[in-house]
């Protein structure tokens, strides 16, 4: 019996119909409580390749356009339907809260470059931070201005990298349709701070809870 490959968790079933998945399999939904999982039936996990990654992303984007709230599922999630139901039941509350957060919203991604430009007017750093953390704290204080200006950012996730000059990725959750205003706001800040690349909008990948139940 084939397992189900999960693309995304939704707050509701997609309105027209779900279309096809990355192997051209028909998509259907699995309902568990208030949660709806968009799945396709597959015999085995798809290989990681540019084609399969882009195909998975395309399915998620299409679903995102058809519903208000979507939590993308990590690539390669193939499991039995009963296993899926158990997981969704166990993590129902956490996932419902995450769905409420992303409803009507989408993700913007900032890549922060750390070389050359020192942070302007660095705040006195707490003593217990190392130089890297202090630097990042100062940088983050700068980016807070993005939020202060037009109040576009609804939530934020930050990942630090040890791959200079890329020092951090900042994922911002914004209201759908606010992407252009967001980019303009980033541009304004970037004039002073420079060295940032913004991309998006993306489905809210970075705002999905990760931990296994």
């Amino acid at each position, binding site marked *: 019996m084939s397992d189900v490959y999960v693309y995304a968790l939704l707050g509701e079933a997609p309105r027209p119909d779900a279309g096809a998945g990355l192997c051209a399999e028909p998509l259907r939904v699995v309902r568990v409580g208030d949660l709806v999982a968009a799945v396709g039936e597959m015999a085995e996990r798809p290989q990681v390749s540019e084609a399969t990654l882009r195909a998975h992303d395309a399915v998620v984007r299409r679903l995102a356009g058809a519903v208000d709230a979507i939590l*993308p*599922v*990590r690539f390669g999630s193939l499991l039995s339907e009963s296993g899926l139901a158990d997981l969704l039941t166990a993590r129902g509350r956490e*996932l419902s809260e995450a769905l409420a957060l992303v409803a009507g919203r989408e993700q913007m991604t900032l890549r922060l470059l750390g070389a050359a430009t020192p942070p302007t007017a660095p705040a006195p750093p707490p003593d217990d931070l190392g130089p890297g953390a202090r630097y990042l704290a100062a940088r983050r204080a700068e980016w807070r201005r993005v939020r202060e200006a037009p109040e576009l950012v609804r939530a934020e996730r930050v990942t630090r990298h040890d*791959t200079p000059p*890329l020092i951090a*990725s900042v994922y911002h959750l914004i209201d759908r349709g606010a992407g252009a205003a967001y980019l303009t706001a980033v541009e304004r800040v970037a004039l002073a701070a420079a060295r940032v*690349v913004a991309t998006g909008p*993306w489905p809210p990948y970075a705002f999905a809870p990760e*931990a296994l139940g």
Partner: protein
Amino acid sequence: MSRRPLTRDEARAIFATTDSSLLEVIDNLLTKGVVLSGDVVLGIGGVDLIYARLSVLLCAVDRLLEVQDEMRKDSRPQGGHPQGRPRQ
């Protein structure tokens, strides 16, 4: 009017047409998203590789912007000289 916002747009355009859009997709799909399956597709080394490659790409875009800014400065010393005009 300042030309800087234009260079930001160009940076985005350059970034969007390079390998970076694939790297953004990889970052989203393999390191983010709800984890439902215990099998981790990508190990720590693989994740580091993504950001190392993004870093290289961002560096390249950064360098391009610098060169572009230099060219702008050089191309209008007396003003009024349009860019890209073939030399007589």
